[in-house]
Structure formats: structure tokens, C-alpha cells
């Protein structure tokens, strides 16, 4: 984690009110991992007192650039969408804990709902680079909000669901998971909380449905076998989720982004944003 000054290199609206911006930040590009985030400060004259957290969308170490993908939801993101090339932003990062892919995992399933694409997008690159196969399930309200294939690597198998059926499967992206749960060695998801809660429920029943036996392990693969919140716990989990919450400091000081974990309160900014699904105390699924 460090404070750095990053220059905006390019900015474009890839979907209605959704922007993709590239920043030149070599030290960040060299150290950030998929799932981590940055905390961006808009200039004083923007009149805003808090930074804005963004998942790192893609990383290009060769050119020292990182991209972020965001939707204009308020004054901060609106200001950012109007920022011009050459504008310099104050960035705090990298922050939080990354996705942990088990070294033995061959098949990676990514599940993204809407802007949740920004949370898992970097993992597609990382997994492909490591020689893994990647399937990306994506859900949106309609075809107009579907993340463009041109922004994804060719090697990714891209499956789309839309609420209104205007493109791909008609229904929720979680409906698609059943077809891939046997294929996937691990799954990684980001999106609205009800979507993540549904996925967590599916993940809990997966071993039983597939008849997976945990031979040679007394008591099976239980949550307690690795300290909750550890990288090991995430590495062993079939499903990892990237959580979202309003944030203050983003370094763990203010306790503003705390959510319920099964072992007590957890800070999305510090213990997260990536958690093993079984570390979260999910509310009743919608």
C-alpha cells in the first residue's frame, strides 16, 4: 500500500454510463493482484471528502498501466468520467486481499453480475497467463448492458444471461452455473449481494451433488482446516467472492465497511474484498 500520483491516459464510455479508464501507475501495475482495489481521491475542487474505491480491472505491467471500470453513480464518478487525458489523480493502493487460485486448479469459472465484471476481469488475464482455462458467466439487465466481447481475451469462453432475454440465456446468471459446476475446479464471483448469496448456496451443495468424497481427510474439507481469512482458506475454497460496501478509509481504520462474517465482523477493505464464500454470514437469499 502506498500513495501515488497517476496520470489518466485514456477514458472511454464502453457501455451507457459505464467508463473504462487507463492510468499510468508503474509501481501499482507491478504490485497489484486480481481482486485488489485502489482508493482514488478526486481533487479538492471536486468538493468531495471521501476517496472512491475501484477494483483494478486490467493490469499491463509492460506499460505500467492499470485500468478501472466504473458506472457513474454520483458526484465522484461523474467528476471522474469528465476527467481528461493528462489529469492526475491521487491513488492509494493496492488495497485488500486478492483472489487466491489453487495451484492445482485447471478450470477457472468466473461469474460476474453487471459491474461485478470489474471485480473479476483481472483474474481472467491472470488465469490465462498461468495456462488455465477460463469460462466467464456474465449477467446483465439487457443486451445494451452486456460487457463487449472485444474487451475480453479471445481464450475466454464467454456466456451471457440477460434478465429480459435480449441476449443469451433469459434469466439470472446464477442459472448458468449448474452447467459448469462439475467442470470448474474453482469459481470466483463479483456482483450484487443476492447473486453472491445464491452462488454461495449453490457452492455449499456442490460436493454432495457431484458426489465428491474427501478421501484421506478426517472430517472432510472443513472450514476450520485453515484459519478464517487466511490466503490458505481462500485457496482451498471452491467459491471466492468479491464483496462491496460503502467505505471510509479503506485501510481498516474506520470500520465503516464492516459486514458479517461467520466468525464475527470483517472489514471488506482489509480482510476482503475477496472472501471464501463460507467465511461470509449470508443473509436470507432474495
Amino acid at each position, binding site marked *: *500500500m502506498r500513495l501515488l500520483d497517476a496520470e489518466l491516459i485514456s477514458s472511454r464510455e464502453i457501455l451507457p454510463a459505464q467508463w473504462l479508464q487507463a492510468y499510468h501507475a508503474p509501481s501499482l501495475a507491478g504490485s497489484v493482484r486480481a481482486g485488489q482495489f485502489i482508493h482514488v481521491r478526486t481533487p479538492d475542487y471536486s468538493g468531495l471528502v471521501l476517496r472512491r474505491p475501484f477494483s483494478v480491472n486490467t493490469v499491463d505491467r509492460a506499460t505500467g498501466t492499470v485500468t478501472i471500470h466504473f458506472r457513474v453513480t454520483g458526484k465522484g464518478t461523474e467528476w471522474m468520467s469528465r476527467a481528461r487525458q493528462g489529469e492526475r489523480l491521487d491513488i492509494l493502493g493496492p488495497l485488500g486481499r486478492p483472489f487466491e487460485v489453487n495451484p492445482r486448479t485447471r478450470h477457472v469459472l468466473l461469474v460476474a453480475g453487471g459491474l461485478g465484471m470489474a471485480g473479476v476481469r483481472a483474474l481472467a488475464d491472470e488465469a490465462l497467463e498461468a495456462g488455465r482455462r477460463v469460462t466467464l458467466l456474465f449477467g446483465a439487465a439487457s443486451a445494451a448492458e452486456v460487457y463487449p466481447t472485444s474487451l475480453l481475451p479471445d481464450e475466454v469462453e464467454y456466456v451471457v444471461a440477460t434478465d429480459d432475454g435480449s441476449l443469451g440465456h433469459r434469466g439470472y446468471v446464477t442459472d448458468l452455473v449448474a452447467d459448469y459446476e462439475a467442470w470448474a475446479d474453482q469459481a470466483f464471483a463479483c456482483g450484487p449481494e443476492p447473486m453472491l448469496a445464491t452462488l454461495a448456496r449453490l457452492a455449499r451443495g456442490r460436493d454432495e451433488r457431484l458426489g465428491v468424497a474427501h478421501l484421506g481427510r478426517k472430517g472432510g474439507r472443513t472450514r476450520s482446516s485453515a484459519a478464517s481469512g487466511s490466503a490458505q482458506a481462500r485457496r482451498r475454497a471452491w467459491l471466492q467472492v468479491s464483496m462491496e460496501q*460503502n467505505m471510509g478509509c479503506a485501510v481498516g481504520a474506520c470500520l465503516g465497511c464492516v459486514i458479517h462474517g461467520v466468525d464475527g465482523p470483517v472489514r471488506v477493505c482489509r480482510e476482503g474484498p475477496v472472501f471464501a464464500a463460507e467465511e461470509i454470514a449470508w443473509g436470507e437469499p432474495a
Partner: protein
Amino acid sequence: MKPKKRVVTNRSTAADPYAAPRRRPALAGPVQARPRGPARSDAPAIPVPSRVADVDLSVDLAPARPGALALRNPILVASGTFGYGVEYGEVADVQRLGAICCKGTTLRPRFGNEPPRVTETPAGMLNSIGLQNPGVDAVIEKYAGLWATWQTPVIVNVAGESIEDYVTVVRRLDGVPGVAGIELNISCPNVGKGGLQFAVDREAASAVTAAVRRATDLPLMVKLSPNVADVRAIAKAIEDAGADAISAINTLSGMAIDRRRRRPLLGNTYGGLSGPAIKPVALRIVYEVAQTVRVPVVAIGGVSGLDDVLDFLMAGASAVQVGTAIFADPLLPERLIDELAAYCAEHGLASFRELVGVALPKGRDRPSVKGVEYRP
């Protein structure tokens, strides 16, 4: 143009622990001093670096216990915005700060309030953390050892639901190496029981302060709530009950609506407003309290630049706490220390304490402490 002094922290000159040499610089004219880094070496005639270094930034927040809470500078970080001093890691240099007020600490662990807990508002933010903390024993075990190695004093912010809670927590902190003082949080607006009830009632504020005073010899600072009709009577009662200093203000009670869901945005419905939006309120309260009590007043509320620090000092504060602004700029407290020193050098002040209370009414026109005639 010698400024009229009203140094709140050092009423009796004989007991002045600083006895700073009142050297007047050869030339009192304005000097261009840059806030960061070494001062310009090409500035004409005047050796700026030595002058900035000569400025005395020290302040004693517990004059009744000389040296017990003597700070190197008057820039503190406010409770709840800097965790336990470790969270910002390498980004911010805790060793430079005047003092750290740690996250509110209670007897038993508290989960705090339901999320969402924070949201931004015009020129401010609302929070309703609800005093989440691991409990006093865990805080001591986990952090006190580290604090003892720091040159920056750590003031433990203490909250409770009853007078017994406060006393028990303070007894456990008493004598622990690394704990430099207590900030009594009787003004948290985000918890159902305890918290605010002690800050809005003169008798209750007095009782809890007196009970804690009997339980410890640690420097004791009591944090006022702005959510009262007249803060002066309460401040006076707290001083009379034995507080060494008074900090003001805690957050203002507020709320926000989630328009999409058509319900209160915060999980706790209500939250405490902080940030630049509340500075004028904090300034008014500091100004009132500084005229009412003789103990040092520590200002909190929307400090986000040197101008805010100067305003609070002139209104009678002996030190300031930086809070919400740290979230946007973790380096702000350190920079304010440098900027304050540069300002004093530029204005020919041997100590920033010469600014304390210069804007207060002189002699007459002191407001009554009865509070009955108060008109906002």
C-alpha cells in the same frame, strides 16, 4: 504589533513548563516558507530553516499534571479515524503526530451497527459504526506494547453504557505502559444505550467524569457532544469534576435516505455527521467552551487545512484533532505540523501558543455559564 496573549494552557507563568525563550526574530516581516520540504535557501537575508525549526510547537494538555500529556505539537488524530495507529502502515508517519486518539474502547467486545455504516454527504460524511471494538483487554494486549515503543503518545478513547463500565475500563488502562491518557467518549451518537446520555445532562457528565477521575491519575480529556442546547454548563461541570482537558466536538446527529430502496440509508438509521460541513458548529462551541473553562480545549470538527487549525487556535483551542480529512489525505496531519511551524515563523511567533484564544472577547462580554439566555 505584538499580539495580545491569552495562553490558555499556561495561566501561571511561573509554572510554565516550556519557558520558551521569547526571542523576537531580527526581522518580523513575512518570509516565504514552503509547507513541505526544506524552506527555500534562496530566500533573502533570513535563514528560514532555522527559524522554522525554532518555533515551539509543544503544548501540555494536562497542565495540572506537568509532563503527563506534554505533546511535541498540537496536531492530534481523532478517535475512529486512525484506528489504533497501525492501519495506515508505511503511508503515514505516526511518530510525527502530536498524539493519537484511538478507536473508542469499551469493556466488552462490540460488533457495532449493521451495514451500511458510512455515506458521503455535502462537505462531510455520516458514520454509524456503533463503537465496534474488541474490548479493552484485547486492545491492551494487542496494541499497548507497540504504543509503548512510540514517541507519539496514545490517548485511549473510552466509551461505556454505565458509570461502572467507564470506571472499570479506565482502571484496566491505568498504569499500562503505552497508554498516555484517556479521552472520555460520553458523546457517541451511534449507540442506543450509553454514549450520548452522559453528554447531554450536566449531572450525568459531572458524575461520570468525577468517577473516572477518582479511578485514575492518567491525564483525562472529556469529549463533548454538539447535540445539546448549551454546551457551556456541561463543559463547566466536567471541568469542576476534574477533567484535565476538554475536546469538542463529537459528530452531529444526522441521517440519509436511500432513494432507490425508499428507506434510511444507514443500517442504524441515524449517523454522526463529520467533515468540513460541521466546522462552523465546532468553532462556535470551542469559542464558547474556551471562555467557560480554564483547562485546555482540544478542537475537533472539519479540520482539513491550516486555515482551520488557525481558526480553532484563535477561537481558544490549545490543540486540534484531524479526523475525516485523513480518509482523503492520510498525510494531512504531518503536513499541518509543518505548515503551522512555517506560519509561526512567518508571523514572528516563538510558539503557536501565542495564537491561542486571540479571537476571544477581551474582558467584558463574557457569556454567562448558566446557559439560559443562549440564542443560536
